[in-house]
């Protein structure tokens, strides 16, 4: 049970954020991302949010131009991950206000800070938006 990676990829297949919780070489990442993105982006809205790929199950969700793809083990609770994606988006929304692809692109470090508060080594640590955002707000105040 666990999250192996989280990817944010836009409609054109460009990676906007990649966070892995298991070590893959750059080559492996590139290959994996290419394969997954090709598979998921080709799917229609009427299809389910789960894609089986190699040993992973990909749980994905699309928000406007941005796809959130989470690779999990086969025995993970798929719907819990699906809603975890939404929680992540809501958290970003609370911080950025109407979050969009550009926010994530130009504030990559903040997206990483948020993820860091939410997931550790593939397990969900925190689901309270207030708690997740506390460190970032502290930083914003300090600077």
């Amino acid at each position, binding site marked *: *049970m666990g999250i192996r990676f989280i990817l944010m990829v836009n409609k054109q297949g460009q*990676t906007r*954020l*990649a*966070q*892995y919780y298991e*070590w893959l070489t*750059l*080559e492996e*990442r*590139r*290959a994996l*991302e290419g394969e997954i993105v090709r598979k998921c982006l080709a*799917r*229609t809205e*009427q*299809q*389910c*949010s*789960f*894609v*089986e790929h190699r040993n992973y199950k990909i749980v994905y969700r699309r928000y406007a131009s941005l796809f959130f793809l989470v690779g999990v083990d*086969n025995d993970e*609770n*798929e*719907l*819990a991950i*699906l*809603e*975890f994606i*939404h*929680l992540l988006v809501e958290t970003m929304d609370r911080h*950025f206000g109407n979050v969009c692809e550009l*926010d994530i*692109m*130009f*504030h*990559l*470090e*903040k997206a*990483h*800070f948020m993820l*860091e508060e939410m997931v*550790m*080594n593939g*397990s*969900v*640590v*925190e*689901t*309270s*938006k*207030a*708690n997740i955002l*506390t*460190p970032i707000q*502290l*930083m914003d105040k*300090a*600077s």
Partner: protein
Amino acid sequence: MAMHGMRGLSVFISDIRNCQNKEQERLRVDKELGNVRTRFKNEKGLTPYEKKKYVWKMLYIYMLGYDVDFGHMEAVSLISAPKYPEKQVGYIVTSCLLNENHDFLRVAINSVRNDIIGRNETFQCLALTMVGNIGGREFAESLAPDVQKLLLSSSCRPLVRKKAALCLLRLFRKNPDVVNVDGWADRMAQLLDERDLGVLTSSMSLLVALVSNNHEAYWTCLPKCVKILERLARNQDVPQEYTYYGIPSPWLQVKTMRALQYFPSIEDPNTRRTLFEVLQRILMGTDVVKNVNKNNASHAVLFEALALVMHLDAEKEMMSQCVALLGKFVAVREPNIRYLGLENMTRMLMVTDVQEVIKRHQVQIIASLKDPDISIRRRALDLLYGMCDVTNAKDIVEELLQYLSSADFAMREELSLKAAILAEKFAPDLSWYVDVILQLIDKAGDFISDDIWFRVVQFVINNDDLQPYAAAKVKEYLHKPAVHETMVKVSAYILGEYSHLLARRPGCSPKEIFSILHEKLPTVSTTTIPILLSAYAKILMHTQPPDQELQNQIWAIFTKYESCIDAEIQQRAVEYFALSRKGAALMDILAEMPKFPERQSSLIKKAEDAEVDTAEQSAIKLRAQQQTSNALVVTDQRPANGAPPPVPVGQLSLVKVPSMITTEDRNLTVQASSQDNGTLSKVDPQPPSADLLGDLLGPLAIEGPPGATVPSEHNAVSGLEGAAEAVDGSAIVPVEVETNTVKPIGNIAERFHALCLKDSGVLYEDPYIQIGIKAEWRAHHGRLVLFLGNKNTAPLISVQALILPPGHLKMELSLVPETIPPRAQVQCPLEVVNLRPSRDVAVLDYSYKFGANMVNVKLRLPATLNKFLQPIPVSAEEFFPQWRSLSGPPLKLQEVVRGVRPMPLSEMANLLNSFRLMISPGLDPNPNNLVVCTTFYSENTHAILCLVRIETDPADRTQLRMTLASGDPTLTFELKEFIKEQLVSIPMVPRAPAAAPPAPPAAQLTPQIPANDPAALLAGLL
């Protein structure tokens, strides 16, 4: 939101965003990397702020997929920066860029430890998170006690403790020997009393890891988990921040129920009652609501509750509620719920009793098999496979067969294997089983492994009633316009044995049977010809009264193949020719094949062995044990001579047909003697187990030949040996010589060739070991995994594997263990880099010891030229300029190839396509020509476009003209030779390394195509 001064980073990101294409992006990235590298060189002048900025740039570049091979030290050094912003960047970027084995991490251990034991909470959090993400052994050794202390400390705030819990989880998972968790049961129980949901959420992850390892030690945590669940699901006693769309932390609920699934049962009646109340509430109280997020969250909890109820399998009432719910789910339109319904129903099959209820939903499940979404189709296929039994096998298998014609390529292999297994396991009657397998071969011949057709032959041999039926059936298939080679094999075998049973039917005279079989001979490969020859010999023998004309025809064929370069074909031709002139003696030697002893199907065994310990696999196993159809019991099973009744044996690859049919087919010719000799030749001096021996002796005891023929058999044998020796002394190898060697199962060369076309399969197999291969190819890189499986109940020792790479391949094999434990499979990854074009082939030199047997084999590895090809569609606008620009040797080569294996054009196109030489239809107006475009990858040449044009002559399919062009002369030449090897009909001699085709001398290059041929005219234009 401003970037707090990291303007340089924003500018860089903007630049990247504005890049028009990948090339521009690469240039911009290279420029930036150069810039960062120079700045890092005189590090002294860098402020912490600048360092931070550059480190983010590195992470950004790395995320884009570029290698960042410097600056790691700078990232790590930020960890010891005094200020929070720099430190934070240091920790986060380090955990993204480095892995636990990285040397630089060691440098940081002290700073990390200082942060962890220091008093600054935010620093503690950062350090714990990084260790929790990438901490390795050294971190575990030096930090585990500190982390444990933080987790339990009452003075520590929740924000630190929740991180400490997951940090400990990592250290424990990675190094259970270093992290001491003795006595942790009480502490875990204490932790579960925690009120803070953040700490609870992460502690629950830690608990899941601990109980999955040793549930007995943590039984005190069980009631606590139930209490937490009660607090969340029933009392809804959680702070607002932790409710998600009105649902109290669905993630913690799910995790808690997951932890509970590691306890086998719940003994305490109070705890049990509470838990069942909560579960009941979840099962009954989850309604479908409009809000998607709320719906998902509540169903996440519901599905976990279902899993827990199934696991506990205690309350009949609740179980039927679960089935009812799942039944509802598999019928809904909403794809996510339907997917999960199918998935969970498959898991549910593990529980007894529910089979009948699930069957009621068969119609809906079959509907999902036709869903446009492949994820759903896969789940439906798995479920149908799991729920199949004698009562519904016919319906399900027929659905699978129907679906096979339209199924995606990716699913066909799995689908046909599953259909074959189900047909065998649950066949209501044998003729149906034969129908199914023949349909499978007809519809998906390429995906039918030898095992499948061996098995059907075995059943036909063992069941007298079935023989005329099967013979009539295969004959029907042979009349079809396109017949798959596997179908030719099965038909030849069955018609050879049993076509005489049809002799009175119209169109089934020996002559007619012979001619429909013989029509196929020009289309088949060298592995099928021997089977055809055997069939001819048998047909000839059954022709009573003898038919002079037929005899002459068949003798002519035998004579023709007497000088065949393929040893197997040659031997059969010579022996059959000699035998068939013996008259009456022939009758006994070519008598019907004896029945096979019944053994467990290798197919079913395979399915069971492939235990990926997923739920659905165990469900399959359960099913298999519970209800195997009786239809497939061998007709004759009486044990004689006190031999033990045949028991299902696991050790051997059970279907012996392969060896009987392919290379070592002495059994057929020397069938009379094979009653003892042939069978014994397979008995190893040190049989792996008693079962094996019993099994091998089985046929001896059961299958006594009819008494009357016994004396003549001996005559026949001696006569045969005489005859054979007269022709070729080595044709019949004395049995004694063979007893000491381990024989491969199946044809090694054939396996290799099959693997040249596909990326996974068996490379080698003998009674002790099976070597499988799975490969992935990407540009000039390849990653193969060798699966070494010990088939026996004793270990294989002194295992050694050596790769002998050809000059153009860089190959690295990971460590191969010296011993393979009984029935175990080890995986050895093999990395391949292709440096330049070449047809040479790598060899695996493999040896092991089993008992007293030392076995050494050299196997060609399927890292062939075609694996580094990538098909590419090319339009006419792109093709012709390229084709023209590559003019003449050495970049463009042309050759007339003779002796081509005659095959229809479509078959040639398929063959080329399967080598990743993509046919581009429409580029050449002449329908007899093929144009191929593909890209070749190697480290030296990078990607090179290769263009090929093949002009065939419809009047003479044995010759063609081939023109190849690429930007590299070696590649052009090598590719030309490679394609030639695939097309010319030079039979592959087993063991010979990549048979070199005879290069037609240049002098032969006479123009074959007359000038008025449109193809020739086009060639001139091109």
